[in-house]
């Protein structure tokens, strides 16, 4: 204990303020951190209150913005630039300038599989989740127990993707056909007389099985946003259409869908961006083995497991580049709507 009190990290921070093993120590650290940052907050305010006059006013503004802006510059912008540089310096990230990592991404078979899987995810998840969410939102609109019905579908959004992966891994659990099944899906296969399957081992089926988990999570998000949009359609439009004899599918096609177009685009793109960065599900369910890896997971593996930080950096840059067109599309669509 004494030794740990005396030991000091390279930066000069005493150990007890850095790490703790006991529960009390951990909570002490937590309160210390909050107090420390509250003190910084107070100091900024105090310094600001000292500045007077017209110049002082401007100084106050800069002072208020400074902590956030500095943290972003040092902790996000600067690291991003370093990552881009690293991606251009070979597999190890510290060699000579080259496009090696980027050409590897589009030529190595394993990495091409990663790109193919990512494309599958980004195409399937947003459309399936949005379609199911929209269908459900329409079906339960104004129904009795709507709030409860919504909560059921929305609940997967609240839990971690790790938790969701465990839930589904159990659904997919494999036992030989003759033996009693413990995975629900294989039990159903057995009931209808099919051989049980190793759902997470056989490519490309396994990628589809992982995609189902993400759809399961995201449908609730789509449902919530679209349900709000449907409720915002003015009553008189629907009433007028109904008087003209429009109902059922035609009502959906010609009245509902055009009215909520903007919301649908937002939902599709938002889920698309989230899906592009999906990591937890792949990592927890297969670790990216058996041809299931996606860009965000491959980034982690290359950087931290295969000792190829340069390639990892290139994959991170790819992720960034892929996000941009989706955001751009979103902006263009919103402009059109406005």
């Amino acid at each position, binding site marked *: 204990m004494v030794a740990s009190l005396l030991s000091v990290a390279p*930066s000069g*921070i005493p150990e007890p303020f*850095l*790490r703790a093993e006991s529960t009390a120590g*951990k909570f002490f650290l*937590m309160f210390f*951190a*909050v107090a420390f*940052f509250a003190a910084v907050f107070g100091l900024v305010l105090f310094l*600001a209150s000292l500045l007077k006059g017209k110049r002082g*006013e*401007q*100084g*106050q503004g800069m002072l*208020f*913005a400074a*902590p956030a*802006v500095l*943290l*972003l510059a040092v*902790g*996000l912008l*600067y*690291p991003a630039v*370093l*990552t881009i540089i*690293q991606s251009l310096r070979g597999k190890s990230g510290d060699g000579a300038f080259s496009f090696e990592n980027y050409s590897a991404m589009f030529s190595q078979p394993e990495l091409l599989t990663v790109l193919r899987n990512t494309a599958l995810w980004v195409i399937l998840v947003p459309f399936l989740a949005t379609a199911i969410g929209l*269908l459900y939102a329409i*079906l339960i609109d104004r*129904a009795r127990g*709507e*709030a409860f019905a919504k*909560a*059921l579908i929305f*609940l997967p959004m*609240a*839990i*971690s993707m*790790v938790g969701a992966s*465990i*839930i589904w*891994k*159990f659904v997919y659990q494999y036992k030989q056909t003759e033996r009693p099944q*413990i995975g629900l899906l294989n039990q159903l296969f057995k009931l209808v007389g099919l051989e049980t399957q190793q759902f997470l081992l056989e490519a490309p089926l396994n990628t589809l099985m992982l995609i189902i988990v993400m759809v399961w999570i995201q449908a609730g998000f789509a449902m*919530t946003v679209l349900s709000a949009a449907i*409720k915002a359609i003015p*009553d008189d439009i629907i009433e007028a259409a109904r008087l003209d004899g429009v109902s*059922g599918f035609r009502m959906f096609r010609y009245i509902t869908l055009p009215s909520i177009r903007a*919301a649908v685009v937002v939902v599709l793109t938002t889920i698309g961006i*989230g899906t*592009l*960065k999906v990591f*937890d599900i792949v990592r927890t369910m297969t670790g990216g083995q058996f041809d299931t890896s996606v860009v965000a997971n491959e*980034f982690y593996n290359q950087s931290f497991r295969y000792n190829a*930080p340069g390639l990892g950096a290139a*994959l*991170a*840059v790819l992720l960034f580049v892929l996000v941009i067109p989706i*955001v751009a599309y979103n902006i263009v669509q*919103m402009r059109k709507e406005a």
Partner: protein
Amino acid sequence: MSTLQPAATPESMIDDAVPPSSGKAKKTATGDAARAVSSRWASLVAIIIAVLWTTPTVGLLVTSFRTQRDINSSGWWTAFGNPGAFTLENYREALEPGATSSFSQYFINTVVITIPAVLLPIFLASLAAYAFAWMPFPGRDALFVAVFALQIVPLQIALIPLLDMYTNKLGFGASYWSVWLSHTIFALPLATFLIHNFMRELPGELMEAARVDGAGHVTIFFKILLPLLTPALAAFGIFQFLWVWNDLLVSLVFLGGTPDVAPVTVRVAELAGTRGNAWYLLSAGAFISMIVPVVVFLSLQRFFVRGLLAGGLKG
């Protein structure tokens, strides 16, 4: 600016707490009959979706209350035939302090990580948002657009250089400080943007009047703005809470898997890789990690939905 427009005004989101407007359709006898038939089909499809969506969770929940032997020898759906066999043993083992298979340490780590990682960005972002909204200074607008634009940067792009900074320059290594700081940094663009938009909507006369009375920015910030900001802070706070509580990547990169610091998510993910068939532990562990966000969800549903909508693009 428009990508995040739905997020921009949390107040404008129609929230679930509003009861569906009633008495919409003028009913006719034939329309009624047609609607009754179609609504029966609609209910059926809705129920099928709801069952599909809840069954997997129910399955694991039931499993977490079965003995290790039962779990591996029969399906969870058979458990209802023998209700006496349910047990709390898995949870006892998963929560027992000191045991190697225990999650209790990891659970504490999750709490210790989450609370500062929610509070810090709120402190910093509300200060910055106030400056961007109500305090003119040179370069302010350009700076705000830059902060706004940073929302689209995936956090992956910053991870490795940040890790290098923490270990080699700051000496944090695998300590809570690295995750607290990282979560704060990654949250700042969204938090600043959200709170700024909310502040812009407050009437400027409020600030003017206070200034005429001789109040400084500090007084205005605390006495006038903070109380008005509560809904925006709650929406962001809950979004950030869930984000951090459920996070895997950031903790995995900066903390690794040591029981000293690693959160439950990291532990559960690791167990899934190394002891993939230890369902008695995995199921209990998964539900231990889920219980807090689910309770938050059920009790704060309104803010929760707003927060999630607002933060849809983050990450």
